[in-house]
């Protein structure tokens, strides 16, 4: 019945992912000059496929979500999404959604995710800061890290998350919130 809602929720998830990149970039204390021209030089980053799971007996599973206090600078709404002609009752529809570009102090970041059957099957940055040696280096390490992490969360196939109690406010940035959005 409500066709639009899942898509909107996925967009929110992608915004979460964007803030993840923002944090990964912001974590490094290096200062880089502002990339003044929005949508300036951007790198194409190859997406990571969901197939391989690096998880073995090691119970430590990295997953992506918005880390606490992950900025959330800009990046509201989304710019577009495509949807395979998934038929009602057929195979789960595969949806690809691209979030709005978020402005970070290192330049614009834009993330694309593909969701199938309520699960993220791939995540990729379609736009990431480039231009200075510092931002190039940060992008080279942070973005693949994020892509891999988002995929690993899927391979863990968790239904829910247990952790120290969160408030309504904290929930918005939690992995549980991302799971609720993806599955709703």
């Amino acid at each position, binding site marked *: 019945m409500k066709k639009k809602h899942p898509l909107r929720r996925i967009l929110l998830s992608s915004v979460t992912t964007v803030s993840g990149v923002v944090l990964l970039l912001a974590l490094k204390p290096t200062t880089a000059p502002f990339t003044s021209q929005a949508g300036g030089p951007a790198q194409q980053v190859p997406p990571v496929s969901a*197939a391989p799971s690096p*998880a073995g007996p090691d*119970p430590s599973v990295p997953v992506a979500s918005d880390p606490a206090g992950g900025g959330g600078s800009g990046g509201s709404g989304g710019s577009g999404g495509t949807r395979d002609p998934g038929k009602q009752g057929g195979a789960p529809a595969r949806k690809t959604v691209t979030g709005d570009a978020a402005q970070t102090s290192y330049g614009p970041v834009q993330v694309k995710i593909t969701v199938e059957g309520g699960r993220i099957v791939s995540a990729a940055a379609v736009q990431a800061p480039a231009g200075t040696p510092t931002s190039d280096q940060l992008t080279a390490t942070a973005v693949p890290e994020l892509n891999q992490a988002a995929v690993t969360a899927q391979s*863990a196939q968790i239904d829910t998350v*247990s*952790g*120290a*109690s*969160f408030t309504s406010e904290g929930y918005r940035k939690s*992995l549980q919130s991302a799971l609720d959005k993806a599955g709703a």
Partner: protein
Amino acid sequence: MSDNPPRLRHVEHCMGTVFSFDVRGARDPRVRAALDEAVAGLHEVDAVFSTFRADSEISRLGRCELALAECSPEVREVLGLCEDAERRTDGWFTARYEGPGSALDPTGLVKGWAVERAVRTITAAGAGKVCLNGGGDVQLTGGPWRVGIADPLRPGGLATVVEADGELAVATSGPAERGCHILDPRTGAPPAEGAASLTVVCASLTEADTWATAGYAMGGRAREWLEALPDVEAFAVAADGTTWHTTGFGRFVAKLSA
């Protein structure tokens, strides 16, 4: 997870946190109705037990405007459970604390109890697979379910994954996002040599929550104490990132494969 059976999901903001419902195989309209009933039940619990609401029974009881006998049966049940928990944890869990303000605060037990009750409401309508997460504490029935245990040192990361098929509760205690809210009842201060987070797994969330809170307050003594509890398993992440778990915890750890 199989996406074939219908899956009913619902997110409800209540008690200052968020409750995430996930009900599988829920084709029966009775299950839908039971979910609504369970949600309403959570809000009723909040109205009765909130220490933030001046007009709640708990607040009025604390101000001696209401006698215990005049309270709803739920209040008596919960306070009874609190006494129980205090006895079974040698006072490490307590609904009473010294100091100004409310002298009666069953909040530490109410949420888990309310979650467990909500799950029972839904299963009573015929749903066999229910997962309810109340602010990070989870009650499961049916399955299989996979519960990620948040890594307290790596926000957004998981420390391990618990797999459940059947009645199981997973409760995690630790300093919450706004700092430590669990105090050593003996010192009134945050626990000495406390874990970064402590997760307890057992059948009932009311109990798991109690054990996790008490164990967290205990600090370094928790491991031995939890090891000795029957049908209770625990997993902890220490402040330096090392982890420990009780001997039986391994059977709940999900095998992660491609």
